[in-house]
């Protein structure tokens, strides 16, 4: 019988001799009792830096007896359950000298469950080897069902399961007229069967393909009992609820005269900045006030539209667009462009044509970066997106 954590109570006790740390047993001369609900009692005796463990009915003479359910005991032993918390919440009961219990903590190295992980190939063979035995006749009904499994990659293979008259027969190869065909790579199949990835993710990322009877595909989970790796019991998934929502907020952005001038300029294919009368710095987009001198800035200046690239910032992971909730394709790149007529830090930020990202050189000091030009939208509405992106000027 395996516990919640895939480790038996007996394994914990049986491995005590090999996990024993004589240096931790300095000066310990006592017997400790363990009473594991439904599994039995064990008596640990430590003396002269040596130990013995025995399964017994008689815990007399123990300085302290620890009582716990199997899951709790195993959980604490392998470090998956917090011992102090288990004790304070009453999941572990201690009878006798609690102080003496502290001595036992130093006696053993922590139990590490043996590595049972199979290779992808071993999993595939085991998964298909157990397919017939996992078949659930009551879910199949009377109709004949033919399911083809096209499992790609070097660890994969091709199988066909034929379900009729309440039996399921698996054969190698693909049937020419299946009810349903599932195609994916071996690794993905293993992850799917072990619950490490869900079918929807595989399908939506095109890592898995389904062809044929979709209603049947939805019922696959009923047709076959859940797969469990050798030596492990099926752990039923706990249903956890997730509520997916989109909050939408109406908003209005008032441009004001300065941003309005800039946005209206874009309609005419013009890019306006404004120059501070005091520090002579150019701001693009233009602002009402110079951010450094804090004085009103009046004079507009048209710059660009071409420029050279100072910095390219490539995104490989895109967050959802807050305006649409959609996630754009990656990689995409944003560039800081020194438009003609600007100098120093007076850069303008915009996107670079996706297929040219690799060809962009960045400039620094006197060195110019790749020269780029804007690609304007056909219909311009006074938005930053009136420039669709910048492309190499060639």
């Amino acid at each position: 019988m395996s516990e919640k954590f895939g480790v038996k109570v007996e394994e914990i006790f049986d491995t005590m001799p090999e996990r024993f740390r004589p240096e931790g047993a300095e000066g310990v001369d006592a017997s400790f009792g363990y009473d594991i609900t439904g599994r039995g009692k064990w008596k640990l005796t430590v003396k002269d830096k040596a130990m013995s463990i025995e399964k017994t009915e008689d815990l007399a003479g123990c300085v302290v007896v620890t009582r716990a359910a199997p899951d709790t005991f195993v959980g604490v032993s392998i470090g998956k359950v917090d011992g102090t918390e288990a004790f304070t919440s009453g999941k572990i009961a201690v009878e006798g000298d609690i102080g003496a219990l502290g001595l036992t903590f130093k006696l053993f190295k922590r139990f590490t469950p043996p590595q049972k992980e199979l290779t992808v190939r071993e999993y595939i063979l085991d998964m298909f080897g157990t397919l017939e035995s996992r078949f659930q006749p009551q879910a199949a009904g009377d109709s004949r069902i033919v399911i083809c499994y096209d499992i790609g990659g070097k660890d994969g293979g091709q199988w066909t399961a034929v379900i009729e008259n309440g039996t399921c027969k698996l054969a190698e190869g693909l049937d020419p007229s299946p009810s349903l065909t599932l195609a994916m790579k071996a690794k993905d199949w293993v992850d799917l069967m072990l619950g490490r990835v869900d079918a929807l993710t595989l399908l939506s990322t095109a890592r898995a393909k389904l062809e044929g009877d979709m209603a049947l595909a939805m019922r696959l989970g009923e047709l076959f009992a859940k797969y469990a790796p050798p030596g492990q019991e099926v752990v039923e998934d706990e249903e956890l609820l997730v509520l997916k929502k989109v909050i939408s907020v109406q908003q209005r952005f008032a441009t004001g005269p300065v941003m309005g001038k800039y946005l209206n300029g874009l309609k005419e294919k013009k890019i306006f900045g404004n120059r501070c009368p005091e520090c002579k710095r150019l701001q693009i987009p233009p602002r009402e006030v110079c951010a450094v001198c804090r004085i009103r800035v009046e004079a507009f200046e048209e710059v660009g539209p071409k420029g050279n690239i100072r910095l390219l910032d490539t995104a490989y992971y895109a967050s959802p667009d807050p305006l649409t909730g959609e996630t754009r394709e990656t990689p995409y790149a944003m560039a800081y462009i020194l438009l003609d007529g600007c100098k120093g830090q007076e850069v303008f930020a915009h996107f670079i044509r996706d297929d040219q990202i690799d060809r962009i050189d960045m400039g620094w000091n006197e060195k110019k970066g790749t020269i780029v030009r804007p690609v304007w939208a056909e219909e311009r509405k006074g938005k930053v997106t009136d420039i669709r992106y910048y492309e190499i000027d060639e």
Partner: protein
Amino acid sequence: MKEQFDTSNCFTIQGKLALPYSYFAGRVGSRFLIRIRDEKKIMGIRCNRCAKVYVPPRQTCDVCMEDIRDNWVDVASEGEVTNFTVVRYRDKHLPKDPPYVLAVIRLDGADTCLAHVVQGVDPAEVRAGLRVRAVFAPETTNTLLDIDHFEPV
């Protein structure tokens, strides 16, 4: 004195901000909602130290700071309005058409209160102390609205 400036370039841009999010009910919240959905029973969690029963359930007792997540108890689907307000405006995120009564209800067997809608009574007639019972929704939404509303007993 109002400063005059050239407004010829001023305009407004209409926009909409969409914020997709996922609310995870968690283990405790899921079990609570699933029992309502599948068995039409309301459960709470009891703190074994102070005996307080939490509805909606939570995994830690806020008085004792005990981990109480496994101590499930059934409570009644009937209880008492301890306080209420009348919602008189309409909004997308609100569960009912206005006006409706949003009440704080202490179910029999619980020590904490659950906020929910009371229908089947004129809002002007609702008083603290009103006995109400849960009416379960025919269609599930996997939310607390699987209890559609409460109605007077």
